[in-house]
């Protein structure tokens, strides 16, 4: 499992939903960091301690489409996501993913 320090390797200030809207977007994180993990045999442990805050648009765009494409079980088994500042962060992300899957089906 790869340890990923979100603040050091991506940003302290997560950006908008799409790449075209600005830097450090959810789409950028999904395509550059998460998708390669899901397409490999590797898994990732994302430590988001120190991030100012995650907007719903970022969380939704970064995670939800992948859960839909690769299946929620594989998604959950390969992606760990946590922060010492916000113990509910993983739950928050999963709630967006579930809502996305629900609406898509």
């Amino acid at each position, binding site marked *: 499992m790869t340890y990923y320090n979100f603040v050091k390797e991506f*940003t*302290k*200030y*997560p*950006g*908008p*939903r799409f790449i075209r*809207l*600005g*830097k*450090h*977007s959810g789409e950028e994180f999904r395509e550059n960091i998460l998708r390669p993990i899901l397409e490999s045999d590797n898994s990732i442990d994302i430590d988001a301690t120190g991030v*100012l*805050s*995650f*907007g*719903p*648009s970022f969380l*939704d765009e970064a995670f*939800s489409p992948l859960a839909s494409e690769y299946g929620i079980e594989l998604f959950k088994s390969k992606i760990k996501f946590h922060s010492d*500042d*916000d113990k509910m962060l993983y739950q928050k992300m999963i709630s*967006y993913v579930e*809502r*996305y899957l629900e*609406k*898509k089906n």
Partner: protein
Amino acid sequence: MKKSSRANQKYRIKLLLEKYLRRKNRIALNKRKKILVKTKKITNPNIIIPNDISFATNWESFVEILNDIQYTIGHRFIKNRSPLSIDHSLMSKVTPSSILVLASTIEKSQKLAGIKLKGNKSYLPQNETVRYLLNEIDYWKYFNVSKLKTNFMQNRFTFFKILDSYQVDNTKIGKMIEFFEKQVGFNNDAKSLLNTALCEASANTVEHGYNNSNINKDTDRWWLTASIDKQEGTISFVFYDQGMGIFKSLEHHKNSQVKKLYNRASNLIKDKPHAKILQHMLSNNASKHNTINRGYGMQTFKNFIDKADNGLLFIASENASYEYPKDSLKEYSNSLSGTLIVWKIQVNHDINSNIYLKGDENDLL
């Protein structure tokens, strides 16, 4: 008989000729009058900012002045390149939102016209507080003037200089929040909701505010500032864009369903239709994107206010405004360019609040 009929005919021709000449003269006179009116505008270009430029108390005059600024700067660029002056001397009542809108209007108009305004000492505000506030927000940079010298001392206001961008720039927004965090305590939830609200506002501007197919990075921007008023015990965040406005963006939306819904709503609602549409957009989860997990924007604006003890959200776009939670709806004769959003919350010294004013270190000793 023959003589008299010839005389009659001559007389009739004379009358017709006189009538024709009178008409011709009248047209020429009217033309001259029109030219005179135009010339008057060109020879007397000074814009006088009125004493009260608060949106709450003087919307119509203030918006008229903003439109005048856009027109006059643009007009001078086309017709006449002689110096233009904006008279600030009467200004006595300003707010963070009115300063932000005034400054951004001046900036955008100058950039569009490709000219730079210059400062003029005789047109500076006479009111010391206004001078101080404009200084703090770095307003004079739009006139290529560095900070004014002032002996006025106060510890009532803390201002953050105006931020702007053509993109969603969460680094700029995040750093501003961190600046205020040193003075105002936010619990994690409140901080996250504030950050989300400001970022969603800028995302809305970038995505829907301007004509996406032809973005001008210099002028199609958003502007943001924030301030603490210690005497009033409030902190305000003010966001503004000079885009097409919420209603025009709904009217021209790519999604035909959104367009249809907007048109139906604006036809059905007879009284204050625009203000009621703002009210509806704030109270419902989806604004324009009734699709998968989209449309958080407007909802997130009020989530931060709900977390505060005594918060107020003011949204104004084009000719309408809505205040939450007061539920106050207003429509005006003069239309503001774009969209203005103000979050104003009460802060106190109770550290158990979600948002509170931190005491000075000296207070703790």
